[in-house]
């Protein structure tokens, strides 16, 4: 029997604006603004064109905080495969072909497998997870992701006793990802987690946001979301997951090891060399707010790091 326990933070169904109304309001605003500028509005807005995902459960892990508008979530992205400016991914990610898409899982596993992502989406129970996202650059959002626990997928490939870490890789294809023609990072983008972090119920693979499949600029068709870590850990457009014995190389750690650690847990007490991490600006706010340890997920994840020096393992 499923017992639903309401948390203080839970949002009532009635409080959530129906998506159709939300979208029509957005279109109305966009139309008004464009009309004022004398521009024509493209009725086939990207968001309306994206496929709606099937039934999804709500999650007790979701926050009740106000969600960052869809426009902001999908137009302000760090995705260097499409350029270094925040607006680049939304403008340029149309060259990515997210369907069909294969996701290979191998390494220290008993049953290496290749999944077709749409098949995976069809056969996996989906959940909505409204998470805070804290970028290492001291801004944050609240994003209603759709996905499933990473642990459920890892269990299916049966990690062996040797598996200690999980390594992730983004697609490497400069034709689809023109930003890879520039050597700003070591391509393909790589990320990694310790196996116990990866198995934590908060860690998910997201396949959608705001009830629809992921827009390309947000890491279509499948990405990682680890809400207690800085955003760059949540690798996008994943093609390969490998279980390993040793700690894997990770893109930002290779690029600037003194600035970006392997763990990258959100921590207000450990500054980035060039800015303080004590506060953050939630997109849409004027005033900064205090950054919370583990991005406010300490009750759930702090025990993963008991006894660790988080200044050293930043």
């Amino acid at each position, binding site marked *: 029997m499923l017992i639903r326990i309401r948390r203080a933070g839970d949002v009532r169904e009635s409080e959530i604006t129906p998506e159709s109304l939300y979208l029509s309001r957005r279109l109305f605003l966009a139309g008004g603004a464009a009309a004022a500028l004398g521009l024509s509005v493209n009725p086939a807005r990207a968001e309306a064109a994206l496929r709606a995902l099937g039934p999804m459960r709500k999650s007790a892990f979701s926050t009740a905080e106000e969600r960052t508008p869809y426009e902001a979530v999908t137009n302000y992205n760090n995705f260097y495969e499409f350029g270094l400016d925040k607006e680049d991914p939304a403008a340029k990610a149309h060259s990515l072909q997210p369907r069909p898409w294969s996701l290979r899982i191998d390494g220290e596993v008993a049953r290496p497998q290749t999944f077709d992502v749409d098949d995976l989406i069809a056969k996996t129970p989906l959940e909505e997870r409204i998470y805070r996202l804290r970028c290492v*650059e001291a801004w944050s959002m609240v994003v209603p992701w759709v996905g499933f626990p990473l642990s459920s997928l890892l269990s299916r490939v049966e990690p062996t006793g040797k598996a200690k870490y999980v390594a992730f890789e983004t697609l490497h294809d400069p034709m689809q990802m023109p930003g890879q023609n520039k050597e*700003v990072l070591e391509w393909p983008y790589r990320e990694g987690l310790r196996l116990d972090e990866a198995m934590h119920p908060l860690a998910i693979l997201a396949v959608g946001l705001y009830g629809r499949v992921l827009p390309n600029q947000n890491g279509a068709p499948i990405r990682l979301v680890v809400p207690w870590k800085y955003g760059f850990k949540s690798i996008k457009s994943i093609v390969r997951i490998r279980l390993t014995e040793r700690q894997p190389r990770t893109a930002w750690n290779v690029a600037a090891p003194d600035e970006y650690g392997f763990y990258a847990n959100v921590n207000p007490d450990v500054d980035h060399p060039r800015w303080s991490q004590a506060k953050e*600006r939630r997109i849409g706010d004027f005033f900064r707010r205090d950054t919370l340890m583990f991005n406010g997920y300490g009750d759930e994840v702090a025990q993963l790091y008991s006894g660790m020096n988080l200044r050293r393992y930043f």
Partner: protein
Amino acid sequence: MRPSLDKTVLFIAASLPALALLWLVPTDGLGVNPIREGMHYTGDWAIRLLILALAITPAAKVSGAKKLFRYRRMIGLFAFFYGLLHVFTYVVLDHFFDVETIIKDIAKRPFITIGMGVFLILLALAVTSTHQMVRRLGARRWQALHRLVYLAGVGAAVHFTLSVKKDITEPLIYGAIIAALLLARLLLRYELLPRLKIPAVRGEPVEP
């Protein structure tokens, strides 16, 4: 005294980036994180105008177009003005007078220390930019003080380079231009750079 046409045109041109903000801010033209974007925007214009101000002297000397000197002060003041907007964005909009954080930033982070140093230089030069201040300081002291503009230029390029997360191409381009202008100044001083002999107007001798 009525302002001359050329200076009026220059004034309007140099004001355009600031005027554009009056349009960009209310129309979300700076995107969803306008404070961060505004910080970059004002910083970009500050360094561009600083470079332009630094270019006046070598350009005037090499070309012999002494008229260019007429524009130097105004362009320098505009560089200060955009620097002021940049610092305003940082102190007021980004940190809202959170003095503790700001002081820590200045003390701990070299790019902010340097940036503040550059701002203080530009402030000192702006305050002493009037004819009256030239008289009060005496030409020699005034000129010595105003040579700090080169230090400000180098500082601005370093500040920009250190602030960038990845891909320092753009700040390096600005840095290279500033280095070239410094070099031109040195070469001119030691008479190593050819000067175009443009016939002087009304029989005035061309500055050697």
